[in-house]
């Protein structure tokens, strides 16, 4: 169950020119959050900047009662967020949304092989997910713009059996789209049992088509502009298939995680 909370910011670290990682004290979030869930943060005063900003939970420390988020400064809201400092209270609702299905719940009898594919800010929820997985062989494929934008690589290395990186300009790792990197790998290598993906829509569309071509289970985490974040206002929808056609599902409540084959990627 989501709660509205005012929690203490413990630290804010700059990871790259535009990405920050924030640790927040929260007994409640740290003890209840599942991978794939997010918090909805009031970055400004709520009157001049009305909307909260959805940010994924990228890790929890249940012992210490803290959780982490990582975010890129894009516009007004994330800029304000980057100006918080330790001891500030942060106003957030969460944990929100559904969560990724962990491998052991999908394939209980097996030590499954898992691929996590993330692009840009889409990598953050995957870190939490990979950390929470036991009894699985974990490969991660992370796409960045360039080597300057690479963040959290060590964190991912710690929680994966194999980590592959791509950059658009080839300044680190594979040169090109992370989807191409991933596709080459499943061609030459044992295919995974499950794919988890998060990133821009074109990337997700491609991943889902790869998954379908190879008949691999696939979950994607979607992004959409949000209002309430709790499922009441119906602004955050994406088109999903259902028996008799399609409908608009709420990314904040029915998602953000969807089965790849259920999502209709528009335009």
């Amino acid at each position: 169950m989501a709660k509205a909370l005012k929690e203490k910011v413990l630290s804010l670290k700059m990871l790259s020119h535009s990405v920050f990682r924030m640790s927040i004290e929260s007994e409640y979030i740290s003890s209840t959050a599942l991978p794939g869930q997010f918090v909805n943060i009031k970055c400004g005063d709520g009157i001049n900047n009305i909307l909260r900003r959805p940010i994924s939970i990228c890790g929890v420390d249940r012992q210490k009662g803290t959780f982490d988020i990582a975010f890129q400064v894009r516009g007004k809201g994330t800029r304000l967020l980057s100006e918080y400092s330790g001891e500030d209270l942060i106003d957030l609702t969460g944990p929100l949304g559904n969560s990724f299905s962990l491998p052991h719940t999908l394939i209980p009898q097996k030590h499954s092989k898992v691929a996590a594919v993330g692009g840009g800010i889409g990598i953050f929820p995957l870190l939490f997910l990979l950390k929470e997985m036991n009894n699985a062989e974990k490969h991660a494929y992370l796409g960045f713009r360039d080597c300057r934008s690479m963040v959290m690589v060590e964190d991912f290395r710690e929680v994966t059996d194999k980590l592959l990186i791509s950059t658009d300009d080839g300044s680190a790792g594979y040169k090109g789209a992370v989807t191409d990197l991933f596709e080459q790998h499943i061609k030459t290598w044992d295919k995974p049992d499950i794919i988890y993906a998060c990133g821009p829509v074109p990337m997700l569309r491609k991943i889902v088509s790869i998954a379908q071509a190879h008949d691999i289970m696939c979950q994607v985490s979607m992004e959409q502009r949000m209002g309430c974040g709790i499922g009441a206002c119906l602004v955050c929808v994406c088109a999903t298939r259902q028996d008799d056609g399609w409908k608009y599902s709420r990314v904040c409540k029915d998602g953000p995680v969807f089965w790849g084959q259920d999502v209709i990627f528009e335009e």
Partner: protein
Amino acid sequence: MAQVSLATNIAGIKLKNPVIAASGTFGFGREFAEFIDLNKLGGISVKGLKLRPTRGNKPPRIAETPAGILNSVGLQNPGIEAFIKDELPFLRQYDTAIIANIAGDTVEEYCEMARMLDDTEIDAIELNVSCPNVKSGGAAFGSSPGAVSEITSRVKACCSHPLIVKLTPNVTDIAEIAMAAEASGADAISLINTVLGMAIDIHKRKPVLGNIVGGLSGPAIKPVAVRMVYEVSKSVRIPVIGMGGIFSGEDAVEFMLAGASAVMVGTANLVNPFACLEVIKGIEEYMEMYNYRHVNEIIGKLDTA
């Protein structure tokens, strides 16, 4: 401290306080029930209902603007039958006024919905006349006194619940429209719905909203809403329910001084699930500060001398 009474009665609808959650920002109450005790609300106006299940508009459906938001949900909706079957029983568990906000493509659809609601346990119907009249060229029902007259009297004829007519602000003369609604049998007027607006992403060179245009709400429109509530209150005798950018008790008091017998809180719910409760508390505090005992001592008490 004086015991203040926020209870009020609008057109036969009993409200334990004058604060109602505005349609479209509160769903059917379920999600908010996780955060607040719905029994504490004056009422809930549910997400605009349509005769049939409706998908709504293409996303993105929301944009942030200075002190406001634009939305273009477009009445995504399970349909009125599903509401009556699946949602109303849940809402009826609570001791708060339930207002069914309805929206149709034709006058007939409005009437059909009103009839379907007639033997349900709702407290009132709110007629959302901001929708385009599909049969006559697509102008909103609410944009001419004639169309408002027609729809009001036709719906009034087929329902026994108190009838609130919710006006659109996108008109030249709001008082004229309110008077048409009153003359045609409306029991109360609520206003304002959202103001038509648009935002552009200059880097993509595209509208931000999938629907191109959307409805502006929030503090940005409060001055427009207060003015319209003031104009309408002076022109009709039926009660007026005011809304548009109410985020605090002080905002609500502005509307009440301008003539609103009750208020609705919309956009504020999106940022703050406790918004309605905070507005109630703020009104209470204002009344205590000035030793008022009944909300009637505020309503319409603006001094324009």
